[in-house]
């Protein structure tokens, strides 16, 4: 295992995530030392709320290096949004996925440490969850694409370095809810998560999307730590907004579809 970890680190240092075989045991039973090791990690407890003002600002300060064709498409979307005809990128309630969850969400997240694993749980979307394996495993050789992809991570001091591949090509690189394009495949995201101050978490992202970006997009997002009760994460099932409360034929509580327009209840 130690050799594998060393090889893994070496490969990461070379910028080449390792691809391990699809077979074999990956989740070995944690030992007391594995739990004790968690106590030595930085304290990322609490709820983290995004700095939304900074999200807005970064669109200007960290411009996205779109390919020329995509840049024209993005400009058209921005013009349409400005004219009052926003393209509803997420009105179908599918997860924002990677990297848009990290880029544009206005909702809170929390970060859990367990042996060999860091887990990000988000609010809204219904299934906002990232599993980041820190046990030294590599990416699968041929991952099944998913909204959040396959993530492996390792600690460099108090910084968690995360490497994500295997994201669905339809998953959008978004500047906001109305402006963005699907990554079109081969998306690779490297993140460095670290505390900039005791209660400020920074995610430095490097987004490689060779079909829509002409160069890696480097940008950052900022999160504030919250410990007050009112920041406790709420369940967020996006599709629930497409229904109102009613009763079925047998008199049981049930969800009744609400006519939708542009991703919200249609005026009657």
């Amino acid at each position, binding site marked *: 295992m130690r050799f594998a970890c060393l090889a893994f680190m070496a490969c990461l240092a070379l910028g080449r995530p390792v691809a391990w075989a699809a077979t074999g045991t990956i989740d070995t039973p944690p030992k007391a030392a594995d739990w004790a090791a968690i106590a030595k990690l930085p304290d990322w407890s*609490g709820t983290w*709320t995004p*700095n*939304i*003002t900074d*999200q*807005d600002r970064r669109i200007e300060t960290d411009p996205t290096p779109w390919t020329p064709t995509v840049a024209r498409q993005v400009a058209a979307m921005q013009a349409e*949004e*400005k*004219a*009052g*005809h*926003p*393209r*509803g*990128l*997420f*009105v179908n*309630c599918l997860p924002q996925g990677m990297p848009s969850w990290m880029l*544009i*969400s*206005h*909702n*809170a997240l929390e970060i859990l440490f367990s042996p060999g694993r860091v887990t990000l749980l988000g*609010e*809204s979307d219904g299934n906002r969850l990232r599993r980041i394996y820190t046990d030294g495993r590599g990416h699968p050789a041929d991952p099944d694409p998913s909204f959040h992809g396959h993530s492996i991570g390792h600690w460099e001091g108090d910084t968690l370095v995360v490497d994500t591949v295997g994201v669905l090509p339809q998953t959008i690189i978004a*500047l*906001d*809810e*109305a*402006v963005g394009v699907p990554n079109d495949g081969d998306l690779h995201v490297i993140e460095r998560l670290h505390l900039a101050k005791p*209660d*400020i978490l920074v995610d430095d992202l490097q987004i490689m999307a060779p079909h829509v970006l002409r160069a890696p997009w480097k940008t950052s997002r900022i999160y*504030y*730590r*919250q*410990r*007050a009760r*009112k*920041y406790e*994460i*709420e*369940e*967020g*099932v*996006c599709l*629930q*907004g497409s*229904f*109102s*409360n009613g009763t079925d034929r047998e008199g049981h509580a049930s969800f009744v579809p609400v006519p939708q*327009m*542009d*991703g*919200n*209840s*249609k*005026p*009657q």
Partner: protein
Amino acid sequence: MSRYFLIALAAGLILAGSPGASAHHSFAMYDPSVTVRLDGTVKEFQWTNPHALIWVIGVTKPGEAPTLWTIELPTSPGNLSRLGWTKHSLSPGDRVVVELNPLRDGQHGGSFRKMTMVLTGQVLLVNLRDQPKTEASK
């Protein structure tokens, strides 16, 4: 939490009109340059993701026949809770005056700007960007 306790909320409403004001969709279909004042009665308050909704039957001009308006709050119950709202903030039958940015296509829908409870004078606002950085965690 008593609804009367709510909302000594943030002043200033920079939210409406900002692209990407919501977690779910852009609010650009609402016209931030127009504010409609709707005087009416709450029919229903839906406290659900991705955006809470208020249905109000009311008038925008004296003498007008009351109609049903669909008013969208700019965010989810999670964020609204942090701004002082609860699922009990509004009840069917509450008399309200709502300021909203209407849909550009003229349908009776709008994005929430401000609401005044007629009975108590209490003012309800939503300004997501006014959330504190980190609240004192002592």
